[in-house]
Every structure is written in C-alpha cells, then in structure tokens.
C-alpha cells in the first residue's frame, strides 16, 4: 500500500490532492486478497497508464483554457535552447541514444524472431507447443523420439490440455511436377496440420477434415514449386503432381515464407501430403503409418484456452504415464516434454548464438545507459551555478526539477526519433546486402518501444537525479565556489569510464573475432573446393508393377539386388568420358550427413561408451578418393569390403582421437547396436579431412554401404578430370541407362556447395560485424565524450597547477596517466565477461574458425587509444590557456 501511495505522486497534483484517499481505499479493497508481489504489480499497472492519462487530461483541459500548454511550451522551448547552447555534448547524447536504441532494437528483434516467434510464415501464437517424446530404457538408452498416430489421437483427446494435436514426418522422394522426376523432401502430415498452425494458404482449400480416414491422394505444394512449375497460376489447384509415380491432386499452396517446422534440422519440405499417402508413395516404409507400433511422428500442439506453459509439462507427464500403463509394451518409459514452438529448436547450436546476442544486447544497453548517465551528470554538475542563480531569483525547486526533466525528455525523444529514422533505412540496406539473414527484421514496434523505453528511463533518471542534488545544495555556497565538486565529480566519472570499458570490451572482442572469421572464410581453403567433384541425391521411383516387368528380380527390393545395380551404375558412370571416380553414400559429403547415430543405431566401444556426437555414413569404394579425403592410416573401404556382413569400418581422425587417444586405431573393435542386435566391427583405416574442409570435422564412422539397413541409395558422388558441371547431362544419361526409374536432384559441385555455405556464413558474420562496428563507434564516442568532458571540467584545476609553477607538459602527462590508469582498470574488470564471450564463441557459435587470440588483443589497444586521446587533447588545450583565464573558467 505504501508503494501505491508513493506512486500516486505520478498523478497531477490537483488530482492527487482531490482523490488520493479514495484511490487508496478503492485499490486496497480491490486487491485485498492478493499476494504482495501481485499487489505491487497491480499498483504499477493501475497508476502508470492512468497517471499518464490524467496528465494528458490536464494538458487538454489546459489547452482549452489556453494556459498549461504555454507553460509546457516554454519549458520545451527552453530545453531546446539549452541543447543548442551545448551542441557538442547534446549531439553526443542524442547520437549515443540513437545508436544504442537502434542496435538494441535490431538485436532484440533477432531474439524475438528466433526465440519467441514460431517458424517463418506461421502466425505468432503463444499456445503453439512442440511435444518432445522420449522413451528411455532402464539401461539409459533412448529408444525413440517420436509418436505414433494413435498416440497423437490419444493426446488430442485430452481436451482440457490441448485444443488440437498434429503430427508429421518426412522422406526424400521422387517428385515430378511436369519437368521430369527430381528428388524432393516430402512431408506426411495429419490432416489438421495447417489448421492447427493457422497458416493461411496462398491458394486452394487445403486438406479436408476427414483426410486421415480417407487417405485421399492429394498434396499441398510450396510457394516456390507453385511459382517454378505452375507460374503462380490459380489453375494449379486441381492439377496433378506425381510423387513416386503416384498422381496426387494439388489442393493448396503454402504462403511464401513458410518452410515447415524446424527446417534447419529436418530440411525444407517441397510438398505436404496426408499421412495416408505414405502407404501409396513409399510402400517399403517401415510399418503401417497408422499403427501404434509405428512411432515416426514429430508432434506439435495448440494448447487449450487458459492452459499455461507450466501446466503442460505436468499434465502431459500424467498423460504419458497413463499411456504407459494402458499399453506397457510400446510405452514403457515414455516421457513427453512440452516446449513452446519457436523458430529455434531447443538445444540447437543457435541457442548459444542467441545467448551471445542477448549478452551483446544487454551490454549495449548498459553501455548506452552508462554513456548517457555520465554525460548528463557532467552536464548537470556544470550547471549547478546556473541552477543556484535561478533558485536565488525565486524559482521553486519543483519548477527547476520540472525544467530539467523536460530537457531530459526532449533529449530522449530526439534520440529515439533519430534511431527510428536511421533504423528503417539501415534495415533496407541490410536486406539488400544480406537477404537470407534479415528476412524477418522488419522494425517491430514492440522491440523498438522496449529499447527506447529503456534508454528513455535511463535518460530521465540520470537527468533528474542530479537535478534533485543540484537543487538541494546551499545556494550561497554553490555560487561562491562552483569548482568545489570537481574532485567528487571526477571520481564519479572515473567510475563511469570503468563501467563503460568493462562493458565495451566483450562486445568489441566478439566483433574482432567476427572480423577475423570473415577474413578466414573469405580467404580460406574452402575456396579451393573442387569444381571437378559433383554430388547428387537420387531416389528410385519405380512402382511395383514396373519393377516386375523391367527388372529380372521381380518386385523384391532386397539390398543385394539394388547393390548389384548400384555397382553397375557406378561402373557405367565411370565409363563416361571425363569421369575419374564414382561413389555412392547414404548421404552427401560428410559435413551434411543426416544419419545420426542415436535412437535405433549406435556405434560404441566394446566397453559400451561412445562420444555423444559420433556420426555415421555408409559409403562405397572410391568415396574417399572422389572427395579428396586422404587415408592417414590403414586403408580405405574397397570393393571387397563392400558386401553384406562386412565388419570393416573406417573412422576419421576426429573419431580416432576421441575413441582411442594416443593409440593406433587400426584393428580396434567397435560395436554396432541395431535395436537389440549387436555386431562387432573392426577398424581398417583412418581418413583425414579433405583439404577444402576447414572447420574441424565431426567424429565420423564410415561403414560399407552394403551393411546399411536403409538409406543406401541416397547420394552419389562423381569426381571428374575437369569441371563436373558440363558432365552432369552425360552422368544423368548414364545412370538412367542402367535404371530408368531414378529421380535425381540436388545436383551441385563441391565448389558451388562450399561457395554457397561460405556466402551464408559471411552474410551472418557480416551482420554481426555491422553491429560490432556500431557498438565500437558507440563505445568510443561515449568514452571520448566522458573523459574529455571530465578533463575539460578540471580546467580550473589545471589553471591552479600552472599558476603554482607546474610545466604544461607535466600537467598533460598527469591527466594522460590518469586516463590510462582508469582505462586499464576498466579493461581488467571487464575481463571475466570477455572470457565468457570468447567461450560462447568457441562453443561452435557461427562456425567460427578463429584460433588466433591475437585478434582479441587488438581490442585493448583500440580502447586504450581512445581513452588516451580523450585525456590528452582536452588537457593539452587547457594547459595552453593562460593560467589566469583558466582559473576563471567553469
């Protein structure tokens, strides 16, 4: 209640005097049953907006009477005159505010997009939730991370928790949109998927409600497919598109930005089909898509009204336990976590990126506030004499404080306006340079308002605090000796310099690392990725009937048959003039492997341990040669190793170092665990990184393609004597000669692939760098202004020193030393934060490749130089002045 009574001072005086008692009475009655924390919140929520409204009422009323506005108007005019009287200082304050607000609004928008909004193209909604199921066996092994269709229905039936639950999964399949079959990612969804996300389709009615039951052969295509193959025509709706030779009717087009959920983890689907279509287009897929034992669905949910995020976890846990009891065989150890659906998948690498962005945003807020505070304090202190004169002439204390508050508000408003004016064009420039990164960086009113509010509060608080101080001092004393506070002031300002440096240092270290990384990326070995190696993905799309007539082995799809065929394809491609080597793998080049060893298949040491990030890839002979990966020890996988039942495996250097440090890995054993089967394997070789691959490779195990359970016809690599691009038509023709029903897609040379990756990396780092440069400018500007102002304020002291016989050189040296000492202290204080920043970056942030700490050390001299310059220039100027004039200065 005391808080509420104190807050009432925010109301206009007359209103407060008239209604304070009643307000307290009504508020007290209204919030009687609430906890003190909720009462405090209610007090703020009640008073702040109403007080602003009441002031507005007074202003409007005054305007009608023609009085109040003129009083405020004269305050504002006077504020502008004061700003104009000290143009440099005011300019710096406004520039610092504008930069601080602008950078912060940008950074907060990034955080907002990745951490709070659902994926692009999905309307913002707090009730969208990601369901993360996990079944843990007693041994601690995780046996699944997805749900079955009946489980999705079970969860959907919990109406008190969920308004709706949907599921989806995806496969790379052959899709023919009219220009020949290509490989594309096809997502199978439950019929309510788009309805649940409330994604407004660009065209078409979408899936009907009962599609799960009917399994109608229909599809929703992406905006880009619509544009590319149908010219964006509405006539596309109702036409057919062939997926694995099955005709599906197009019933919808997704909006332009929509890329599904978790596109960065699962890839971006090109087509969405009902779950029932899976049996049609992928008859060899494991299990019936609607069976309880087929746990393949990634699930999302929309929460029921008034179900809070905290409730979900607990109530979902109860549901999972009930499921486990009713179906013990399939649900043992089932846990379902629920997390809000955001553009960022939890625990992905980008979480660290966001942590770093948040750290930088916070530091920039602190730098901005410190700068503004220090400058305003200096400004108010310099005006003590003026304030004293006004008080002596009869101005009330209240009147003077109101005047200073108006000045602060005008400064804050100017800063925010400038930030807004610069923010929109700078976003446009950024979009032109980095379209992939800033697609969502439209100025968000909420984030901008937040950043402006923060800076505004700092301005007002630090503008008014000295006003209270200045107006409470003894007028006579102040007028007699205005230089008395200089020492106290300089101590305070030294404190600000320390805080400023401590905060700027980590921001600038991050910036310099980014800069070094850009240089590394631009000049790195990746530019040597060969244009002579081409990779492509492929999918067989012959239907069972076609298969029966064209292939001697009938409709069986045993790996042996296809492996024999694969080998024929490999040999046939090698005969193409110009092709040197050809290899097949279960996924593309190592950096992009999607087959992770978790869930159903693991590679472990006989002792049962395994590095958590160990990944696997199944390859044929020639794979390492084709990609230019050197064999460091032992031998590569050869044609003889590539047979079912083979126990040979090759590891890369990273895996060898992790599994058998300081030992020779050749001949060592590894265990492959598949469901509950175990197979002992033997390491026959160690391969290194390809020369163009700069970031340290992940720990990898390479096994012969014939031993893979599935996915053994996913990617194809051909190494050629010259540019591979020109040979692509011949390679395609050669492949189709052996296997006519093959869809080929993602055709790219390594040079193109790495150039694209580098372009993206440089883009994202460029964005970070731009923010860093702005931060450096902000920090330097503030640092210079604070120190220079502090030194200039001591002109009188300099005059005294000179009058006492000190030489100008000694005086300058004294101030110079002071500046350096304070700066060094600030830098030392900032060191722990800098270490945290470096650690965040080293944790894989942005794919940094920089090991050179020298880049970090560059920052220190820059900051020291700014501080030194700021101490030296004003001191030199003051020391040149005649001591008599300096003594009179203030």
């Amino acid at each position, binding site marked *: 209640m005391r808080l509420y009574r104190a807050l009432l001072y925010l109301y206009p005086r007359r209103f407060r005097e008239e209604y304070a008692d*009643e307000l307290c009475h009504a508020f007290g009655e209204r919030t009687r049953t609430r906890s003190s924390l909720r009462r405090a919140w209610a007090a703020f929520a009640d008073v702040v907006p109403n007080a602003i409204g*009441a002031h507005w009422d007074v202003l409007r009323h005054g305007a009608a009477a023609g009085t109040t506005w003129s009083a405020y108007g004269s305050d504002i005019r006077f504020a502008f005159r004061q700003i104009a009287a000290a143009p440099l200082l005011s300019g710096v304050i406004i520039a610092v505010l504008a930069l601080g607000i602008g950078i912060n609004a940008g950074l907060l928008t990034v955080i907002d997009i990745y951490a709070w909004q659902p994926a692009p193209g999905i309307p913002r909604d707090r009730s969208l939730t990601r369901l993360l199921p996990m079944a843990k066996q007693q041994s601690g092994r995780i046996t699944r991370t997805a749900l079955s269709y009946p489980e999705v229905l079970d969860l959907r039936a919990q109406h008190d928790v969920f308004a709706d639950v949907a599921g989806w999964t995806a496969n790379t399949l052959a899709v023919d949109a009219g220009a020949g079959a290509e490989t594309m990612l096809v997502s199978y969804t439950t019929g309510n998927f788009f309805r649940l996300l409330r994604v407004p389709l660009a065209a078409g009615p979408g899936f009907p409600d009962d599609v799960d039951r009917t399994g109608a052969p229909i599809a929703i295509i992406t905006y880009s497919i619509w544009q590319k193959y149908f010219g964006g025509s509405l006539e596309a709706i109702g036409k057919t598109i062939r997926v694995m030779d099955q005709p599906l009717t197009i019933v919808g087009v997704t909006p332009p930005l929509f890329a599904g959920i978790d596109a960065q983890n699962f890839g971006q689907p090109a087509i969405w089909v009902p779950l029932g279509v899976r049996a049609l287009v992928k008859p060899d897929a494991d299990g019936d898509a609607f069976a309880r034992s087929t746990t393949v669905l990634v699930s999302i949910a929309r929460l029921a009204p008034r179900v809070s995020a905290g409730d979900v976890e607990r109530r979902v846990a109860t549901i999972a336990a009930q499921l486990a009891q009713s179906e013990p065989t399939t649900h043992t150890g089932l846990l379902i976590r629920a997390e809000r659906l955001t553009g960022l998948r939890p625990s992905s690498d980008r979480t660290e990126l966001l942590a770093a962005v948040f750290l930088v945003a916070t530091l920039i807020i602190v730098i901005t506030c410190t700068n503004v505070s220090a400058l305003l304090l200096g400004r108010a202190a310099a005006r003590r004499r003026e304030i004293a004169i006004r008080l002596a002439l009869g101005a009330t204390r209240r009147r003077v404080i109101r005047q200073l508050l108006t000045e602060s508000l005008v400064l804050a408003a100017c800063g925010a306006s400038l930030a807004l004016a610069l923010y929109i064009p700078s976003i446009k420039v950024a979009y032109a340079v980095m379209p992939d990164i800033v697609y969502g960086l439209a100025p968000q009113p909420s984030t901008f308002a937040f950043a402006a509010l923060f800076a505004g509060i700092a301005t007002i608080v630090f503008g008014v605090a000295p006003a209270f101080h200045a107006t409470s001092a003894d007028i006579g004393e102040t007028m007699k000796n205005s230089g008395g506070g200089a020492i106290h002031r300089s101590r305070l300002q030294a404190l600000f310099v320390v805080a400023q440096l401590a905060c700027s240092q980590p921001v600038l270290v991050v910036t310099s690392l980014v800069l070094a990384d850009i240089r590394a990326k631009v000049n790195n070995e990746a530019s040597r990725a060969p244009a002579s190696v081409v990779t492509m993905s492929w999918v067989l799309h012959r239907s069972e009937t076609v298969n029966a007539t064209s292939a001697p082995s009938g409709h069986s799809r045993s790996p042996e048959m296809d492996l024999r065929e694969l080998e024929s394809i490999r040999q046939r491609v090698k005969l193409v003039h110009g092709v040197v080597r050809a290899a097949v793998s279960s996924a593309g080049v190592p950096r992009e492997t999607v087959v992770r060893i978790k869930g159903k298949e693991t590679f472990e040491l006989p002792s049962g341990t395994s590095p958590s990030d160990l990944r696997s890839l199944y390859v044929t002979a020639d794979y390492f040669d084709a990609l230019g990966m050197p064999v460091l020890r032992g031998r590569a996988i050869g044609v003889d190793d590539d047979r079912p039942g083979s126990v040979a495996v090759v590891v890369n250097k990273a895996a060898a170092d992790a599994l058998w440090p300081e030992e020779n890995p050749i001949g060592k054993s590894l265990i492959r665990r598949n469901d509950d089967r175990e197979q002992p394997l033997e390491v026959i070789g160690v391969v290194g990184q390809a020369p163009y691959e700069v970031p340290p490779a992940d720990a990898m195990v390479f096994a012969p393609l014939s031993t893979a359970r599935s996915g053994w016809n996913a990617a194809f690599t051909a190494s050629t004597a010259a540019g591979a691009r020109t040979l692509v038509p011949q390679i395609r023709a050669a492949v189709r000669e052996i296997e006519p029903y093959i869809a080929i897609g993602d055709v790219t040379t390594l040079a193109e692939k790495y150039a694209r990756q580098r372009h993206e990396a440089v883009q994202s780092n460029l964005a970070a760098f731009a923010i860093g440069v702005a931060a450096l400018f902000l920090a330097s500007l503030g640092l210079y202004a604070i120190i220079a102002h502090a030194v200039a304020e001591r002109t009188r002291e300099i005059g005294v020193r000179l009058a006492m016989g000190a030489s100008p050189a000694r005086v300058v040296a004294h101030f110079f030393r002071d500046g350096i000492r304070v700066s060094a202290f600030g830098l030392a204080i900032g060191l722990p934060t800098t270490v945290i920043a470096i650690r965040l970056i080293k944790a894989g942030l942005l794919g940094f490749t920089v090991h050179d700490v020298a880049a970090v050390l560059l920052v220190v001299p820059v900051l020291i130089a700014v501080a030194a310059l700021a101490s030296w220039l004003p001191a030199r100027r003051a020391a040149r002045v005649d001591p008599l004039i300096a003594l009179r200065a203030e």
Partner: protein
Amino acid sequence: MPSAPDRVTALLPLPPATFHILLALIDQDRHGYAIIQDVEERTRGELRMSAGTLYRSIARMVEQGLIAEVTKRRADSDDARRRYYRLTSFGDAVARGEMRRLSDLVRLARQRGLTPESI
C-alpha cells in the same frame, strides 16, 4: 451557452466506462469501490475497472456535470475516506441519450438481418 440537448449530444458517444458508471448510479448513490463492484457484477466480470481508471472517469464526469458528490452525512460506521456520488439530472439526460443512440444502432443492425446468434 449551448442548449441542453446540444450539450447532451456533444458528449455522445460515451466511453463504455462512463456509461457503466452512470448506470451504477441510476438507482442509488454509491461510493467509488461500490461502483467498481456494481459494474463488475452487472457485466459478469467482463469489465473490471481499476481504481485509477474509475477516479479519472469520476473526475472528468464531475467536471462535465454528469455526477456530483453527495454532501449529506453518512452513517458513523462508514469509512471516513468514502465519498458518495449521485447522478445529476444532466447525467440522467446523457445516459438516456446514449441509450437512445445504442438502441437505434441495434435496430439498424436488426433491420439488416443481423442477429447475435449468427455470429
């Protein structure tokens, strides 16, 4: 000085909070917190006014002459901080004017075939 009907029209349409406060004072004089309770009860909790919102409205309404403070003595048991308000005849006219306006609006909508059920 404008005529009374003109003064009424000048205040229309009324902000919802103002209309609810007028409604709360039609049958009896009430103090601030009683007005809050009455509005909340009548709207089944849909409109929950905070103390600040209420007294800003009251201050404006007193100024406009829609309501006035009751100066009669209260019972000794009553909280001394409470002040009672009553509807003035002008306030009564404005409330009726607002009601007429809303009724006309509803009639127009009905003529166009709009019913609440069709929403």
